[in-house]
């Protein structure tokens, strides 16, 4: 099961085939939460782009940092939601799938690399191509690990 939303676990029938999912049971509020969160996240991304604009042939630092920060935040968020036990059922759709999903972007990253290469900046394009996933994965790993340790420390008290 994907980790982007609050989808129910897969149900398997005795014959081994999947039982039909309940037709959109309770999906309305989740979709609305994802939509509102996505709007807010994208607005924050757009604002960051206005504050720190990237020239056509320049290295896209803003998008790189947006993605790194968003990855760190989702690490903290999803560990926190898992540790809370009974979080609000719209917390993950709104904050994770919505806000952070709307804040971070894969398409701008790919088109930024394409733009650098097309402008003859192949080295910067390759650097962006490699640095973004490395930084994103390091961020989510470090943030999730730190959050888990904090929860362990808190329980130990």
């Amino acid at each position, binding site marked *: 099961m994907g980790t982007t939303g609050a989808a129910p676990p897969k149900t398997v029938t005795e014959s081994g085939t999947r039982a039909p999912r309940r037709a959109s049971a309770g999906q309305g509020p989740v979709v609305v939460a994802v939509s509102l969160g*996505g709007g807010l996240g*994208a607005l924050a991304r757009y604002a960051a782009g206005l504050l720190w604009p990237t020239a056509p042939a320049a290295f896209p630092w803003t998008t790189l940092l947006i993605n790194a920060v968003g990855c760190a935040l989702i690490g903290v968020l999803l560990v926190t939601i898992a540790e809370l036990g009974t979080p609000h059922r719209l917390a993950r759709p709104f904050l994770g799938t919505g806000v952070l999903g709307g804040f971070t972007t894969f398409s701008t990253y790919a088109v930024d690399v394409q733009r650098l290469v097309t402008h003859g900046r192949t080295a910067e394009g390759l650097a962006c191509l490699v640095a973004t*996933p490395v930084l994103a994965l390091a961020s989510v790993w470090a943030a999730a690990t730190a959050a888990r340790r904090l929860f362990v420390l808190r329980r130990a008290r």
Partner: protein
Amino acid sequence: MNWLLVVAGAMVGAPLRYLTDRFVQARHDSVFPWGTFTVNVVGCLVLGVLTGAVDEPTRLLLGTGLCGALTTYSTFSYETLRLAEDGARGYAVLNVAGSVVCGLGAAFAGVALGQALT
């Protein structure tokens, strides 16, 4: 009013990502996150087509807003972390390499398609 265009596009893009992920994930039994992979590659293709092919308001609505929110780096990296932590390191590596290669390929294809159309 540019920010309204971005928000309007994103309010469609984000739920489209959620619903596509649910649709795709319900239709296979592997642990590979095909749902996120799909929206990211499709988003790269569409943003590529839009690049240089549309005016500023359309780019903000469909590019920065819709494609920006349809695609995601946070879920992509969190799913990769989960694959690695759950012992599916091969899938984790495949997810990163596959998403980056296919996303970039889709962006180049999209730009070429956009230039051919205009």
